[in-house]
């Protein structure tokens, strides 16, 4: 090897040392990539082993159609109330985050001056970096009391001649300490940065030539933003939506703190009533089991894996969906 290095800079001689070094680097990098795959496979295997063991004791039909989740007290393993809790938080947080996040993205990409952008983008990133436990705390300590203090006024806004039928009208005399509404609000706020930053990337990628074409036809800035730039960036926007929704589905800490631990089937037809009350998501139920004493044994413990498997299937489906949408709507400008 020393002979090779002596041969100098100008030598065309292939250095065995360099070749071996390159090969080593290549393998180290490949090992890191393979590690992530192995971990994913490991998680799936661990989850599915215990989950199958659970489903051999409790029929999957009972699990997926049962309307009562009470693993410790009643040994009742119906997952529907948990799915309902998850869906309520997901839907209402999406109602908050998707429009606001897209509007923020449009502002950042189309309207904001460089100065405004230089303040707003880091702020959004800070919002994304707030630990979720703080969001849960905020919901519990600030959001719920704040809404509670406004609610009596809102009830007065309903004209007296409107008949109040509790099954159909959204009348909330007061919020529970734990409630789905404030949980949805903070999860919504939590996922706004995800929607806005990915959407903004998509909007900024729309070429200026399309904006010029729009302005040249006598479009206002709003016309150009909403009728040209947004439709041209559909794939990225939808991808941001799906990722944000996945995040809302998987969110744990904030919903556990803000929404409590009482599994609740939706009230039909007035699902809004669920917002005022405590509920439990799939993730919160897993936290509850993991925190209990029964670790390591029994169907209750294994139910955690069945829930994990269910959650994993839902978020995996969402991610696949995001990828399909991205491919379907991708535009070559």
């Amino acid at each position, binding site marked *: 090897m020393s002979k090779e290095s002596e041969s100098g800079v100008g030598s065309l001689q292939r250095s065995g040392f360099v070749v071996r070094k390159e090969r080593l680097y290549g393998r180290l990098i490949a090992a890191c990539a393979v590690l992530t795959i192995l971990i994913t496979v490991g998680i799936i295997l661990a989850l599915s082993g215990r989950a199958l063991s659970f489903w051999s004791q409790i029929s999957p039909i009972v699990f997926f159609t049962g309307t009562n989740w009470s693993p410790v007290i009643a040994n009742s393993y119906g997952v529907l109330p948990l799915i309902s809790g998850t869906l309520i938080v997901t839907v209402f947080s999406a109602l908050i985050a998707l429009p606001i996040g897209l509007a923020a993205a449009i502002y950042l990409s189309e309207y904001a001056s460089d100065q405004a952008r230089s303040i707003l983008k880091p702020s959004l990133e800070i919002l994304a970096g707030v630990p979720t436990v703080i969001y849960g705390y905020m919901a519990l300590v600030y959001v719920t009391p704040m809404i509670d203090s406004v609610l009596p006024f809102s009830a007065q806004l309903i004209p007296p001649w409107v008949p109040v039928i509790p099954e159909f009208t959204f009348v909330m005399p007061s919020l529970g300490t734990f409630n789905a509404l404030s949980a949805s609000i903070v999860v919504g706020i939590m996922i706004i940065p995800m929607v806005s930053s990915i959407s903004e990337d998509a909007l900024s990628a729309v070429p200026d030539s*399309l904006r*010029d*074409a*729009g302005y040249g*036809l*006598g479009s206002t800035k709003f016309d150009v933003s909403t009728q040209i730039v947004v439709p*041209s960036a559909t794939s990225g926007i939808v991808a941001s939506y799906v990722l944000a929704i996945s995040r809302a589905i998987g969110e744990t800490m904030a919903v556990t703190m803000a929404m409590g631990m009482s599994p609740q089937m939706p009230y039909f037809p007035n699902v809004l009533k669920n917002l005022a009350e405590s509920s439990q998501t799939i993730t919160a139920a897993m936290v509850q089991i993991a925190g209990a004493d029964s670790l390591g044994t029994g169907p209750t413990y294994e139910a955690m894996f069945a829930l994990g498997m269910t959650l994993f299937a839902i978020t995996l489906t969402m991610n696949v969906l995001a990828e399909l949408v991205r491919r379907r709507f991708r535009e*070559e*400008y």
Partner: protein
Amino acid sequence: MSESDSAPKIQTSIETGKTDSAPPETEDVVIESRSLDVYYGDEQALDDVSMEIREREVTALIGPSGCGKSTFLRCINRMNDMIDVCRVEGDVEFSGKNVYDDNVDSVALRRKIGIVFQKPNPFPKSIRDNVAYGLKIQGFDGDVDERVEESLKEAALWDEVKDQLDSSGLDLSGGQQQRLCIARAIAPDPEVVLMDEPTSALDPVAASKIEDLIDDLAGEYTVIIVTHNMQQAARISDRTAVFLTGGRLVEYDDTATIFEDPEHQRVEDYITGKFG
């Protein structure tokens, strides 16, 4: 050919009462710039440009790169508003109204003055929606499909796309895309169509189709075209303006005069290819 259109502009036609060897269809001035200076930051892009553009003629703007011809074009419909550092001094009058007056709405102005860009830029929408876009945002209350068909026919594209109006405009070839952009620009029936080197990104066959098209459009619209291609200017334009470096309009006359007997030696040198 259009008595009704020329009637209200008698006053301006008197001002330009120049007689030409090849009489144009009308001598009404539709656009007039006076002492127009444009700056990008500290750099001057146009220097004291005054010219009158006549209705229903094809006016070509030629000159070497960076001479300000595209800048002049974009001043007419205020596309330069989008550039922060751009500053305009002087007047550009459209139908007797200075478009840089404070009370002029640039959006309304651009609805009367369409523009076609160098690189075809159809929206990632269907062919139909591309052409209908301008109608939609301008609140067109007639039969949209009929107007789309008319515009595509005017742009000599109808026969090629009539069976695929719902497919994406991006699936067309470059030349077809540019004709689609022309159809899109003329669909809302503007008075003036600006063209910023519309054929420079196209192959010669596609370019010659666009040239034929511009010839046809001149009967109905005022066309102002920036081109690098002097043969193109000679073939399709009625009047030619030669910009030379420094953003100065050096000579502006009938195309035949510019190409056969220009007044300035520098223009002759440019046209015969001695520089540029």
